[in-house]
């Protein structure tokens, strides 16, 4: 393990619907309350109840932006979680489990898919192991200095039930999550007050549930202290003066949209984008007046066209979706393009075509976002690399959309959407509103307004529909300056040129620092190029490499379209190792860079198994490259 030993990695695993999320939420908050930083990664199946899910939390005294490939303390609700993650527990680490699962036969668990069982058995055979039960498996790990903390969940729950007068087992088993939290925090001897505060935050609105959970937590905590004593783990609180928040990616986007002035959001339910819309609807009435309207439509075609119709009135409007939804939206995108309507699409990528990997990560859709729709029109693609960027970009997307009167696609991914982290308080005072050439009644008084007037920049001053004293027309057909249908050859030539000119204008006007971020040394012998969520893992891996004496630079492409090609050419032209890192099969960004600059990357680090990149695997891949031991193409497959 190369990553910082000082960090503590905790994981809760259990069947979906068993409270994995709330236990992780409480764990993370409790750590935050103690002045620590957290980064959480959530993995779940396309299933409501029963299939495996887990939440991994990395706790660190410093801010962290990526996950690592180890578990220090694995907290299992059921046998499956234990089996799935047992080999990820680091030597010296611990496993919390139910005494009730010890005799469970490993290959008798129905929710473990045959392909997993086959792979698992193969791995055991390679190790020369032939365990039958969970207990056999645990005994093997004991040999690697992994500690086992078996706790009689059911007995403890019944005891709690007796105290509070609750006999219904189904109600009691809902507290397995808090029970295991109690054991976890007892083992690391963490300050109880912070955990109680976190439990209060999650269950505070339901007093009877709150008191029962507090009791369960305390019982389990005391049990662990008494039974297992000092375990060698210790999670210490630390003092901080920094004002911090704890949020997930979809919330950051939602907050950015509110600050950015978005007032109509249309969506159709889809994972993982829907969380954003639900949050917006819950918080729709704004604290200093006004409100955002959130419309759940009948499909994604209605979502984008509704947002586009709203944008015609001069209102900042958006839709939020993931790949399958965006596929449906494409005709609407084209209409907004040819009619020069500023509409924003927050696009949360997940893996694979069709339904693909509905709850898993991917970065497959960069090319699709750039090219979606028949015909040609300008668009702007903005890619966030971390949760804080999600906030500022979500707001900024509207500025680009309105200034250049064209659709803006804000590309996000599942890893960003469903990860959560602590970070410095966001600063909404950085959010500037640039509405571009937006006219009002006074501006057009006495003039013959033409919606698509030819101009040098390609930008025709825009008027909201409903403005008194004027009318105009839009059509999905090619049109004249007035917005009426035309099929005339000269008008078609000029009108498309006018629209496409806006892309040149955008390319010229948008400052480089909004399109690219560069980290490390520009003259380093190796330059990494990437976009989106791999950023966190790359930055941490670069730090680790630096300690080993390897200098690297990292070009984070935030705007792949229009691509800042001069700068990219300048930086990549000087380096001997050009490394592309992205979460897809074909190296889409590398392809775009080659198309626009002629530069071919020397190395590719790619991953498409539905899991985000971890610091460890990125580090390992980069180290191989730095030591000239790497193949041109390295495919990562980490994450369970």
């Amino acid at each position: 393990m190369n990553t910082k030993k000082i960090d503590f990695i905790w994981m809760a695993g259990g069947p979906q619907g068993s409270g994995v999320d709330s236990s992780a939420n409480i764990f993370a908050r409790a750590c935050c309350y103690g002045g620590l930083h957290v980064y959480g990664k959530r993995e779940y199946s396309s299933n409501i109840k029963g299939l495996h899910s887990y939440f991994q939390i990395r706790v660190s005294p410093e801010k962290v932006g990526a996950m690592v490939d180890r578990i220090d303390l694995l907290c299992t609700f059921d046998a499956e979680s234990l089996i799935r993650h047992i080999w990820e527990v680091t030597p010296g680490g611990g496993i919390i489990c139910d005494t009730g699962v010890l005799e469970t036969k490993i290959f008798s668990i129905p929710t473990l898919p045959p392909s997993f069982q086959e792979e698992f058995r193969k791995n055991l055979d390679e190790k020369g192991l032939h365990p039958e039960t969970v207990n056999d498996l645990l005994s093997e790990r004991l040999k690697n200095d992994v500690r086992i903390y078996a706790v009689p969940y059911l007995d403890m729950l019944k005891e709690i039930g007796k105290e509070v007068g609750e006999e219904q087992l189904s109600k009691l088993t809902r507290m397995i999550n808090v029970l295991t939290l109690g054991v976890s925090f007892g083992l690391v001897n963490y300050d109880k007050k912070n955990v109680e505060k976190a439990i209060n935050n999650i269950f505070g609105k339901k007093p009877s549930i709150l008191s029962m959970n507090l009791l369960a937590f305390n019982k389990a905590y005391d049990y662990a202290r008494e039974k297992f004593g000092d375990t060698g783990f210790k999670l210490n609180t630390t003092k901080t003066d920094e004002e911090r928040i704890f949020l997930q990616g979809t919330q950051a986007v939602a907050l950015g949209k509110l600050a950015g002035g978005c007032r109509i959001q249309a969506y159709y339910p889809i994972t993982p984008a829907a969380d954003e819309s639900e949050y917006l609807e819950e918080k729709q009435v704004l604290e200093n007046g006004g409100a955002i309207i959130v419309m759940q439509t009948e499909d994604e075609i209605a979502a984008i066209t509704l947002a586009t119709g709203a944008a015609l009135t001069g209102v900042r409007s958006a839709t939020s979706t993931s790949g399958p939804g965006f596929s449906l939206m494409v005709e609407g995108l084209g209409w907004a393009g040819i009619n020069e309507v500023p509409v924003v699409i927050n696009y949360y990528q997940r893996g694979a075509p069709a339904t693909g990997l509905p709850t898993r990560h991917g970065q497959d859709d960069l090319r699709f976002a750039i090219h979606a729709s028949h015909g040609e029109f300008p668009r702007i693609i903005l890619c966030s690399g971390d949760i804080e960027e999600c906030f500022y970009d979500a707001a900024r997307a509207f500025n680009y959309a309105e200034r250049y009167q064209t659709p803006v696609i804000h590309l996000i991914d599942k890893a960003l959407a469903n990860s959560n982290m602590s970070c410095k308080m966001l600063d909404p005072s950085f959010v500037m509103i640039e509405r571009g050439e937006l006219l009002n009644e006074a501006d057009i008084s006495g003039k013959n307004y033409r919606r698509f007037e030819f101009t040098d920049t390609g930008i025709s001053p825009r008027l909201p529909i409903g403005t008194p004293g004027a009318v105009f027309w839009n059509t999905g057909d090619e049109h004249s300056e007035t917005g009426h249908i035309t099929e005339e050859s000269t008008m078609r030539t000029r009108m498309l040129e006018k629209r496409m000119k806006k892309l040149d204008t955008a390319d010229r006007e948008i400052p480089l620092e909004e399109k690219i971020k560069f980290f490390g040394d520009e003259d380093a012998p190796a330059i990494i190029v990437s976009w989106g969520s791999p950023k966190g893992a790359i930055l941490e891996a670069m730090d680790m490499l630096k300690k080993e004496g390897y200098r690297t630079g990292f070009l984070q492409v935030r705007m792949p379209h229009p691509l800042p090609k001069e700068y990219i050419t300048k930086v990549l032209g000087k380096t001997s190792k050009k490394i592309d890192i992205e979460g897809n099969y074909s190296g889409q960004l590398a392809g775009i860079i080659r198309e626009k600059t002629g530069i071919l990357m020397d190395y590719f680090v790619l991953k498409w198994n539905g899991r985000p990149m971890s610091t460890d695997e990125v580090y390992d891949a980069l180290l191989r490259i730095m030591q000239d031991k790497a193949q041109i193409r390295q495919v990562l497959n980490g994450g369970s």
Partner: protein
Amino acid sequence: MALKIADYRTQVFNDWCPGCGNFGILTSLQMALVDLQLPPSRVAIFSGIGCHAKLPHFMNTYGIHTLHGRALPFAIGAKLADPGLEVIVHAGDGDGLGIGAGHFVNTGRRNMDMTYIIHDNGVYGLTKGQPSPTLKLGVKTKAIPKPNINEGINPIVLGLATGYTFIARSYCYDVAHLKETIKKAINHKGMALVIIQQCCPTYNDINTKDWYGGEDRRDPATGKPVPRLYKLEETGYDGVVRKQEEVPVKTAAAFTKAFEWGDRIPMGVFYQNELVSTFQERISDRIADYLKMPPSKQVIADREGKSATSIKRLLEELKVT
């Protein structure tokens, strides 16, 4: 100064076929707006794709010619953002009931305060006469090689089933009736659906002006044609719901009337119910000042261009130190 019909006309060359039923619809709409004295800048007309869809270009109002089947969601977006707009949506039968059927159904559920006008001629005109979703089973119009293999959708029944609170039928060549029907639809508080029986002289040689007018069946006594269309109002039919308890009875009556076709085709208001809350009212229940401060009137930036939206309380909720 009072608005005249010329104030609603544009100079755009009208390329509908000679005798097209759309001309009557266009004129009726313009006359209705004159009667209602609606300023052109307050009116936004949305259309889908097809012959009907060129209508906004001939109207001197805000005119949004959208995508095939999608006029409704575009229009809903505009109406939500600016509830002061008078939003009128035009669709064809293929447009609104084929490719856009999902939007038709779900718009009924919402009861937005808008008007939805479907030009129903039984054919896809602009692609040269294929059968549309309203063409009856077994009918063979001249451009199709074989009789229609699908049953036709009954748009009035579908409208009743999905929650439209005003449902009427009119006829493209009865300009006076159509004008009054459009006015009623615009004045209706809620989502109004107007089905217009429209003739397509080029591709529908079955449901022609002569057919609707009954030229093929003359009264032996007078020698005059016996029209197929008749006016519900003239039969004493009253589809207006005035009390909640009338809903089942009036709905059932409208259903029964909606199935009349062939020899006698009713036109007029089948059903109207203003007791149902509009979408605007439903939003106002959640957002008290929605109508006073709709999205289109909200100020989102201060003088220096900084965001005018406070998210302080929301950030406070997320605070952990």
